[in-house]
């Protein structure tokens, strides 16, 4: 009896202690609201630096819902846990971050805690931003606080099930948030180290290109293995890169700055927006990121052999997919057939693009259906959308034809699902 009571007491004590510990980990104080700082209180140089870093991180990509209201939030992001709405990060005192002090901003960027002490969902990539340097965070703060304040209350995020309880994120942070800057690697160049700091930090490349575990955290053991994001496949950026042509630092640099690589393809989907932002970032920073990723892909097949000859198995593909060959001739050939006017302007052949090389049809199908906006850099054609020209079966047949003609890889098995997915258009 006495032993039983002691045991019960012990359990109660242990439970109370863990609850207290959990509370201590999960609870964060509110940081006092401050008056929005005067834009003139920031040095011009710092603001410009902040702008270039904001372009590098493409803050506006998630935090802008309407082009005319930059950074005012409200854009939705479909996640496996439900839809998350981006916050208003303009310096509006009521609905934005106008009352956030430098310390409050710093805590949000590095630890994912809002000014009022609430946990932010890690859809906001603070697990990356935590690696940013003090100077970079300061510059970003200066830039954000000098933007026009826009009053706009973003819809409230309501996730499904247990993840709706935000203090649980404290546990997520314990498991998956490695706080602080990365140790430089003395064996590598300063460009490589800067590139890594930016890619892993503000540019948060892994946010799309690294697969996530069931807790929604990036699986570091599969860093840059490629992942699905909002219905697009972000391809691998490591030794598993399926690129046909070698990704050198020079080629990556050109691609990231202009959205078009003459040896690979035009940037599609969310990457198109990323390159349009990178076109306005600091050239040296983009160059450093290119150096870093070229090194990550240095063991990829294309790094060992840069295949100059573009594969074209026209006859094989035509025999396998005769109807799609007709569609290609009538709808695509005028730009993409070897010798077509666009091909004379140094545009890459379809065989060199990653979408046809990866083992799923999502990107190919979406590009056919939605087209591609003009790249950020060179003036030139945009690809029109074919969603209203071709029916689902025709899009699928065309995708199969392209795979058969411009690669020697096995046929895709997921074309039907990819077309249905793209037609639904909700990114889930």
């Amino acid at each position, binding site marked *: 009896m006495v032993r039983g009571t002691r045991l019960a007491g012990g359990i109660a004590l242990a439970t109370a202690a863990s609850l207290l510990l959990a509370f201590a980990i999960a609870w964060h104080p509110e940081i006092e609201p401050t008056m929005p700082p005067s834009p003139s209180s920031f040095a011009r140089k710092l603001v410009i630096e902040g702008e270039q870093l904001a372009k590098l991180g493409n803050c506006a990509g998630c935090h802008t819902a309407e082009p005319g209201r930059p950074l005012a939030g409200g854009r939705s992001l479909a996640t496996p846990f439900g839809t998350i709405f981006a916050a208003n990060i303009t310096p509006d005192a009521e609905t934005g971050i106008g009352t956030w002090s430098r310390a409050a901003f710093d805590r949000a960027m590095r630890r994912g805690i809002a000014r009022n002490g609430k946990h932010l969902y890690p859809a906001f990539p603070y697990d990356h931003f935590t690696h940013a340097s003090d100077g970079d965070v300061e510059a970003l703060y200066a830039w954000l606080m000098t933007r026009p304040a826009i009053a706009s209350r973003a819809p409230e995020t309501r996730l499904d099930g247990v993840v709706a309880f935000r203090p649980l994120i404290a546990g997520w942070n314990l498991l998956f948030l490695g706080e602080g800057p990365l140790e430089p690697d003395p064996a590598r160049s300063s460009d490589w180290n800067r590139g890594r700091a930016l890619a892993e930090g503000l540019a948060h490349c892994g946010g799309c290109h690294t697969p996530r575990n069931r807790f929604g955290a990036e699986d570091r053991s599969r860093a840059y293995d490629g992942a699905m994001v909002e219905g697009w496949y972000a391809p691998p950026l490591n030794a598993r890169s399926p690129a046909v042509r070698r990704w050198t630092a020079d080629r990556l640099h050109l691609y990231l700055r202009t959205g078009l690589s003459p040896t690979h393809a035009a940037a599609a989907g969310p990457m198109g927006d990323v390159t349009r932002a990178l076109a306005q970032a600091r050239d040296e920073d983009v160059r450093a990121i290119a150096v870093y990723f070229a090194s990550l892909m240095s063991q990829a097949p294309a790094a060992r052999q840069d295949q100059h000859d573009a594969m074209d198995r026209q006859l094989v593909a035509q025999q396998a997919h005769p109807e799609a060959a007709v*569609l290609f001739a*009538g709808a695509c050939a005028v730009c993409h057939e070897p010798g077509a006017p666009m091909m004379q302007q140094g545009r890459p052949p379809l065989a060199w693009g990653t979408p046809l090389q990866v083992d799923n049809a999502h990107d190919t199908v979406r590009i056919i259906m939605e087209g591609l906006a003009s790249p950020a850099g060179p003036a030139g054609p945009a690809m029109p959308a074919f969603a209203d*020209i071709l029916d689902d079966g025709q899009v699928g047949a065309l995708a199969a034809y392209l795979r058969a003609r411009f690669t020697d890889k096995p046929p895709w098995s997921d074309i039907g699902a990819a077309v249905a997915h793209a037609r639904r258009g909700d990114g889930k």
Partner: protein
Amino acid sequence: MIALTVNGETHQVDVDPDTPLLYVLRNELALNGAKFGCGLGQCGACTVLLDGKPVYSCLVPVAALRTRKVRTLEGLASPDGTPGVLSIAFEAEQAAQCGYCIAGMIVRAQALLERNTRPTADEVRAHLAPNLCRCGTHMRILRAVHRAAEMMGGGVRAVAEREP
């Protein structure tokens, strides 16, 4: 022979299956409303409606149509030859200068107003953005679409600028 339905009429044409719809309309059916501009899906002069949605007819292989219905500028007029509402509005606003883009503009605008006779000014601009005009009559084109929306019992809503 390939069968296609244009403006409610079914035609049999003897062309290669990869022939662009635009060539069939102009060369086989003498429907010259849709124009050849770039042939690359960049300018919109060849716009027609495919099951009610605006498409570049220069990029539609005729074999892709199957049973889907094509409507051209000619099909927007009444059977007695009275021009469609948009055509009347474009004439009233004198929206054509060289006129080459106008057929495509009218057809694309038709798709919008059939769906919504009360679009906002921004929606009209965004909807017409794929079609190019190089004379510079954009403002007249927009006025013509506004006028047509009113003639259809709707109107283009001006959305007040929000407070910054």
